[in-house]
């Protein structure tokens, strides 16, 4: 306040510690390690991107955050009405919880992998203008998905109480399947965005894959209706393990067997590592493509 406007202009603020940084275009042998380092330096941007997505989603709608609550509730009612009679021979009593618990996880998975592609394509306009570590965009998509997942747990709890499934201590285990699914989604999202940068039809093709994948995973139907002879496909489907890991603590109040946990962990770590290496290997090329 004491400064006059003229003085204020002459004051130049420098950042400390950055003047020693040297960028050398010839030094890029380990791009998958370099990108981890770069992404960490831009972690505040990650938070801003997630905040932007969450805020812009809710800002202009009158019902705001209530939409995330209403949407699953409405779908719940419809699906329960339709499928309760179809699966009558089976215990339909807690069907809404059986369905919604898996739906919450599936929505997180399908939305965040799709968003990983569109985030990078959105960022594309920007990536031609300034340097930003590119992995930030798929990461932000998963981050936004995680926030929405946590919000969606609220209507899930409401339905549990309405239907009469009492929350058990096993639900404290839920962060484990959430983190594992997020890692799997990130790995897949990175691989898909690597492709989507070059071929724009990948986004549409993936939507078709997703809808088939949804019905191949025991989400709306009980596992027991799959004939013995055709279970191999179910066991080869990674989402089967993630869904079980997430659903059992909610629906039955028990933990999944250790084998499910092992398979899910191996699949998620391997997918993330593979996706990361694939993505960072093409990173120099992306600026030209976007």
């Amino acid at each position: 306040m004491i400064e006059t406007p003229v003085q204020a202009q002459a004051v130049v603020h420098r950042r400390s510690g950055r003047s020693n940084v040297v960028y050398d275009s010839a030094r890029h042998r380990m791009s998958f390690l370099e990108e981890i380092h770069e992404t960490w330096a831009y972690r505040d941007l990650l938070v801003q991107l997630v905040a932007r997505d969450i805020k812009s989603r809710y800002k202009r709608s009158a019902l705001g955050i209530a939409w995330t609550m209403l949407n699953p509730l409405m779908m719940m009612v419809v699906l329960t009405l339709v499928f309760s009679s179809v699966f009558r021979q089976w215990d339909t009593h807690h069907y809404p919880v059986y369905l919604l618990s898996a739906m919450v996880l599936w929505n997180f998975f399908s939305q965040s992998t799709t968003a990983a592609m569109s985030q990078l394509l959105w960022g594309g306009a920007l990536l031609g203008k300034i340097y930003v570590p590119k992995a930030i965009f798929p990461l932000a998509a998963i981050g936004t998905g995680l926030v929405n997942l946590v919000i969606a747990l609220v209507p899930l709890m409401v339905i549990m109480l309405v239907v009469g499934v009492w929350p058990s201590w096993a639900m404290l285990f839920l962060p484990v399947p959430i983190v594992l699914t997020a890692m799997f989604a990130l790995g897949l999202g990175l691989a898909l965005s690597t492709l989507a940068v070059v071929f724009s039809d990948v986004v549409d093709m993936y939507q078709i894959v997703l809808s088939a994948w949804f019905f191949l995973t025991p989400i709306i139907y009980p596992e027991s209706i799959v004939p013995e002879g055709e279970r191999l496909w179910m066991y080869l489907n990674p989402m089967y393990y993630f869904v079980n890991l997430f659903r059992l603590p909610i629906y039955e109040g028990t933990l999944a067997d250790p084998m499910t946990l092992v398979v899910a962990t191996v699949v998620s770590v391997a997918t993330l590592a593979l996706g990361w290496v694939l993505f960072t290997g093409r990173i120099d090329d992306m600026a030209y493509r976007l």
Partner: protein
Amino acid sequence: MTQTPVEELITLTGSQEGEAPAGPDGDVAVHMDNVSVVYRVPHERIPSLKEYAIRRLRGQFTYEDFWALRDLSLTVRRGESVGIVGSNGAGKSTLLKVVARIFRPTQGRVIVRGQVVPLLELGAAFHPELTGVENVYLNATLLGYTRKETEARFKDIVDFAELWDFIDAPLRTYSSGMAARLGFATGTAWAPDVLIIDEILSVGDDAFQRKSRARIRAFQEQGSTVLLVTHDPGLVQAVCQRALWLDHGQIRMDGRPEEVLAAYAAR
């Protein structure tokens, strides 16, 4: 001003990882060594995976290489301000993008010492639904600053943009001039080691333009290196002590602004 021997600089930087080499070469800000940038332009655009698979199988796959920069070598010393002129497609913007590490050169080597801030199309990242405050944070973190650093400079950013009355309104309610002012104020809130300007100094009204030039001058006075691309010869004269004329991705002329601009005008 003596030119730094190229070999000496390379042995110095090549031997160390991440740290600025000490000694006399510490005052080289940008060093480009035989840099080429090649864009691969397909004869037909192949946007879909399906299409690609079909072409690949039939062996129909033709493209042309476009050399945006060709064997370009350049050394810019710390604190030097260089204006770059040339016709469209001469490689001016590509040169800036290589220095800003947006493109990695196809051949050759680029070494940039210190933090680079590109003022290319300010506010490109603005989000219309977010408020001015939120957009300042988004833009500053996109430039690599932390939330804390932005917080510390926030008041000055809004002061400079003169937007206190609108800072809580969503950006879609801003005029394009207001958005540009906010973008400039955010991008220049910190003095960068290397400032890259692509045709954007004409932001806002006369008063704001004077103010933004004064800020660039303050940066220069305290040691920032400036690379400026513009079609305005007056601006090169006013801001730079050195000018480059780029032609077909190569340096046609390098020297004092009045000489280079005269030669460029007489081409």
